[in-house]
C-alpha cells in the first residue's frame, strides 16, 4: 500500500524540506490513495543549535485521537522542554521512541494515522520499517508487509495479579459492592505506572479504599506468587514479600490471637447423609451445600453459636445465618458466603454455591459475597484428613473443621459391630461468648440433623 509520507509537524529547519521532497517523490505514484494517510511525527528542531532531542514524556498514548494543535509529546532540547503539537487531526498509532529515548532532529518518533482503521496499518508499518531513527525509511513494500503482519497490536505485558480478595478484607461501602473502584489519586497513578489492574487490588485504606501501598504490594505480589507457583520456580533462601492477600491473612491471623478460643470435637455418622446426597446429587446438590444447610439448621436452635463478639464488652446475636465456606484458591484462601443458609432450600443453596465457587476462581467475588459470614466451615476431608483444628476468623463466633467421612468399624449400643461412615468435626469458638455446653449441645443438634437429614430437603 502506498503511503504518503508527510510531516505532521512544522519543524523549523531542514527536515521539512526533506520531507517535502519525499512527499513530492511519493505523490507521483499514489495520487489516488491520498485518502489513506499515515504521517510520521518526527523530532522537531526546537532551537538552531539542536541536533537531537530527548523525549521527556508522551502526553498522549497510542490509540488516542489527536486534534490539530494538541500537545503530543514533550521534548527536551539543549535549552528547554517544549511541548510539541500536532498540525493534523488523527490517531496516535505508534510511538517509535519511548519516553527517555533520544532521537536526532528530523527522525520519526511516532506515527499518526488519519483514521482509526489505519492504526493497525501504521503499526505494521512501524514494525516493518524497523529503524525509527531513519527518517527516510521507505515503505515501498508495505503492502506486502501489511498482509504478512496481521495486526501486530503491541500488547502491553500485563502482570499476573495476586488473588483479588482476602478473608475479612473490608471494601469501600460506597463502591456499590465492588463494582466501582475506589482508589486514591496516588494509588491510581502508581497502578498506571506499575501496570497493576486496580480491580484486582484489595484496599487497605480507610473504608477499604485502595491506597498506594496496596498497589505497590500488588505490583510486588506477582513476582512472589510466580516464585511460589511451582517447586521449580522457588528461589531458595530468597526473601519473598507478602502479597496483598498474604499480608491480609497474616494480619487476620495475628489478630485472632487476641481471642480466647477453645475446641470441641464430635464424631458424626454420615450414612444417611451420604444416601441423601447420592439421591439428590443429580439435581445439582453438593455435599458442601448439604453440610452448610445442616449447620445452618443447627445454628437456628443455638443462636449463641452464631453470635460474635467484637469489642470484648458485648456481643451480637447475628440476625442472619451466613455460612462461610473456606475455599483454597491460587495463592491463598477465600470464604464465599452462603447467605441465609437456614432459609434457602437445598437446591437454591447448591446453585448459589456453584456460582460462588466459579466467581471465586475467576476472582470476581463481590465483597459481600466473602466477608459477611457469621459461621465458617472448613473442610479438608477431600485430602483424606480425618481431623484438624481451625483458627477462628476474627469477628465471628465459631468455625467448624470438617474431616473426611470414612468407613469406620463401630460398636453399636445393641452390642453389635458394624460399619458406618463417620466424620469428625471440630469446632473452634470464642469462649468469651460461646461456652463448652453451648458448643456441645450445638454439635449434638448438628449430629442429629446429619444423621436424620430429612429436614435438609424440605
Amino acid at each position, binding site marked *: 500500500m502506498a503511503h504518503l509520507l508527510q510531516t505532521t509537524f512544522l519543524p523549523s529547519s531542514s527536515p521539512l524540506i526533506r520531507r517535502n521532497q519525499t512527499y513530492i517523490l511519493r505523490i507521483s505514484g499514489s495520487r489516488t490513495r491520498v485518502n489513506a494517510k499515515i504521517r510520521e511525527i518526527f523530532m522537531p528542531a526546537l532551537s538552531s543549535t539542536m541536533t537531537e532531542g530527548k523525549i521527556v*514524556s508522551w502526553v498522549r498514548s497510542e490509540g488516542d485521537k489527536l486534534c490539530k494543535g494538541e*500537545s503530543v509529546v*514533550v521534548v527536551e532540547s539543549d*535549552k*528547554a*522542554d517544549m*511541548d510539541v503539537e500536532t498540525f493534523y487531526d488523527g490517531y496516535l498509532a505508534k510511538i517509535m521512541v519511548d519516553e527517555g529515548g533520544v532521537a536526532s532532529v528530523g527522525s520519526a518518533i511516532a506515527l499518526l494515522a488519519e483514521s482509526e482503521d489505519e492504526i493497525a496499518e501504521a503499526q505494521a508499518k512501524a514494525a516493518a520499517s524497523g529503524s525509527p531513527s531513519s527518517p527516510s525509511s521507505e515503505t515501498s513494500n508495505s503492502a506486502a508487509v501489511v498482509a504478512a503482519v496481521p495486526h501486530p497490536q503491541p500488547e502491553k505485558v500485563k502482570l499476573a495479579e495476586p488473588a483479588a480478595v482476602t478473608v475479612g478484607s473490608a471494601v*469501600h*461501602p*460506597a463502591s456499590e459492592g465492588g463494582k*466501582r473502584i*475506589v482508589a*486514591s*489519586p*496516588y*494509588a*491510581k*497513578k502508581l497502578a498506571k505506572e506499575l501496570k497493576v489492574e486496580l480491580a484486582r487490588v484489595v484496599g487497605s*485504606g*480507610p*473504608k477499604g*479504599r485502595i*491506597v*498506594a501501598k496496596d498497589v505497590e504490594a500488588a505490583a510486588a505480589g506477582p513476582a512472589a506468587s510466580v516464585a511460589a507457583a511451582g517447586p521449580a520456580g522457588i528461589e531458595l533462601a530468597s526473601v519473598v514479600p507478602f502479597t496483598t492477600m498474604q499480608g491480609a491473612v497474616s494480619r487476620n491471623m495475628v489478630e485472632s490471637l487476641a481471642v480466647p478460643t477453645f475446641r470441641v470435637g464430635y464424631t458424626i455418622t454420615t450414612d444417611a447423609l451420604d444416601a441423601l446426597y447420592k439421591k439428590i446429587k443429580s439435581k445439582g446438590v453438593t455435599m458442601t451445600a448439604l453440610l452448610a444447610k445442616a449447620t445452618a439448621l443447627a445454628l437456628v436452635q443455638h443462636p449463641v453459636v452464631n453470635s460474635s463478639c467484637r469489642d470484648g464488652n458485648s456481643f451480637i446475636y447475628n440476625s442472619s445465618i451466613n455460612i462461610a465456606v473456606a475455599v483454597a484458591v491460587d495463592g491463598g484462601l477465600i470464604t464465599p458466603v452462603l447467605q441465609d443458609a437456614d432459609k434457602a432450600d437445598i437446591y437454591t443453596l447448591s446453585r448459589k454455591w456453584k456460582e460462588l465457587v466459579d466467581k471465586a476462581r475467576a476472582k470476581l467475588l463481590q465483597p459481600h459475597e466473602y466477608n459477611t459470614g457469621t459461621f465458617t466451615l472448613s473442610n479438608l476431608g477431600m485430602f483424606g484428613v480425618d481431623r484438624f483444628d481451625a483458627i477462628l476468623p476474627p469477628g465471628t463466633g465459631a468455625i467448624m473443621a470438617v474431616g473426611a467421612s470414612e468407613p469406620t468399624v463401630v460398636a453399636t449400643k445393641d452390642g453389635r459391630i458394624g460399619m458406618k461412615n463417620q466424620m469428625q468435626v471440630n469446632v473452634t469458638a470464642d469462649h468469651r461468648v460461646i461456652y463448652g455446653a453451648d458448643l456441645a449441645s450445638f454439635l449434638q443438634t448438628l449430629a442429629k440433623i446429619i444423621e436424620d437429614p430429612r429436614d435438609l430437603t424440605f
Partner: protein
Amino acid sequence: MHCSAAFSQAATSATAVPTISGSRHVGALHSSSSSSSCTLLIPSKPINLRFCGLRREAFGFSPSAFTRCSNSQRVRLPSRRRFKGSNVSASLGDNGIPKSFDYDLIIIGAGVGGHGAALHAVEKGLKTAIIEGDVVGGTCVNRGCVPSKALLAVSGRMRELQSEHHMKALGLQVHAAGYDRQGVADHANNLATKIRNNLTNSMKALGVDILTGVGTILGPQKVKFGTDNIVTAKDIIIATGSVPFVPKGIEVDGKTVITSDHALKLEFVPDWIAIVGSGYIGLEFSDVYTALGSEVTFIEALDQLMPGFDPEIGKLAQRVLINPRKIDYHTGVFATKITPAKDGKPVTIELIDAKTKEPKDTLEVDAALIATGRAPFTNGLGLENINVVTQRGFVPVDERMRVIDANGNLVPHLYCIGDANGKMMLAHAASAQGISVVEQVTGRDHVLNHLSIPAACFTHPEISMVGLTEPQAREKAEKEGFEVSVVKTSFKANTKALAENEGEGLAKLIYRPDNGEILGVHIFGLHAADLIHEASNAIALGTRIQDIKFAVHAHPTLSEVLDELFKAAKVNF
C-alpha cells in the same frame, strides 16, 4: 463635573495654612517614605511606630522645621489639609466654616483595599475613617493571601526536604523530614495576627479613625455603622471584599467540607482531599496539601485544569505541579452535591457532566475544599438606599471605580474598589483602585490600567503573569489589526536557577513587534511572583522593549530570565 469640583477643592486646600502636629507627619513619612531630608527629623523608621500611641499634640514639629523636607510636596500638602481642615470637608467645625461632613473620606471595609486607600488618603490630607464590621485586614490578611503564604512557605520547604533527588543533587543529606501540624497552623495564624496588628497600627498611627461595626449606606454621603452611629463624609469608598463562593448543593460543615477560610486554619490534614476548582486558590492548596502528605483530586468544571492561565503556562504547570504529584483530576464536571462526612461515611461528591448534565461519577473522599472562586460581600450594605442594583452581588462601577446606579447614572461621591466590584479580585488590585480613587477625589484624574496589575500563584515553583494571555493578545490583535509576537526563555538557561537546581520553568513575552509594546508576560518558575514586577512596571509606565532591553541586570540572578526575554524579542523599529 466631578473632576473639576475635585480640582477646585484641591486648589483651595493648597492655600490653607498648615498647623502641623506630629503624628500625622510621622505617619505620612512612614507611608510614603519620601524625602531624605526628613530623615534628619526622624532618626530611623522603626521609631515612627513608637509614635503610634501618642497624641498628636505631643509632637510639636515646627512648621519651619518641617519645611526643611523641601523636596516633598507630597508630605506637606496633606498636612495642611489634615489639620486645618479644608473648606470642603470642614469637619472640625471650629473655624467658622459650616460643618457639613464628619469626614472627607469614609472607607467601608478595612481589608487591603481599604487600607491602601486610607493610607493614601491621609497622605493626601483627607480626614479619613475606616469602618470594619469584622477584623482589620479583611480576607487577604486573615483568611487569604497572608496565612496561605505561611502554609506555602512550609510546603515549599517540605517539598524540598522530601525530594531526595533534589537534595542529593545538591550534595545534601536529610533524613525523614516531618512536620507538626499544629506548629504549621500556628505559623499561619501568628503571621495573620502580626500583619493584622501592623495594619491596624499603621492606620492608627496615621490618624485614621477605625470605626467598628457593620457599615451601611443610608443615603448619599451618609453611612451608619454598628447599631446606630451615623457619620457623613464627602466621599465614600465601598471596599467590603468577598467571601468564598459555595455553589448550590454543597454543604459546607467547616470540618470535612471546607472553604479556604477553614483550610487556612489547617485543623486537619486529610489523607485524600478533593479540591473543587483549579484556579489560584485550588492550586495553592494542592501544593500545601500534597507537601503535607495528602492526595488530591481536582474537580474542574471547564475542560482544562487551570483555566485563566496562559495555556502554555498552564500546560507546563500541569506537567510540573500536577502530573508528578499525588494528584488526579476530573475535568468538564460539576460537583452538584457534596455531603460532609457523617456517621462513619466519607465525604461524598456527586459529579455530573458539565455539558450533558448527566451523572458521571461519585467520589468518596476524606475532605473536600471548595475553591470555586469568591463572591462579593455586598449584602446589607444599603445599596438600595441609593438605587444601586448589584450584578451577581458585584457593585457596578465605571473605569474610575465610580458606582453606577440602576439607571446607569454615576452615583456622586460613591466609589467601590476591590473584590466587591469584581474587576480584578486581587488584594493589590483593590489597593491600587483605592489609591486611584483617592487621587480622583483629591483633584487628580486617574484611571488605573488593570493590564499592568500582576497576579501570582504561589505554588512551587510559582506562576505569575501580567497583561494579556497569548490567546487574548491574538484576539485583540485580530480586532485591532496589529501583529503579535511571542518569545520564550527557559529557566534551564539561567545560571542562578541552575545553581538552585531549579531549572524547571518558562518565561514568555507577548508583544507588538511593530512598536515594542509589552502586551503580556507570563512566568512559571522559581520566584516567578517576584520576577514579574519588572514587566508589570514596564507596562504601567509604558516602557517599550527597545528601551528596557538595555537595562542591566545583575549576574547571576533570576532576573536575567526576563533580561533574556527582552533581549530575545525582535522589534521592527
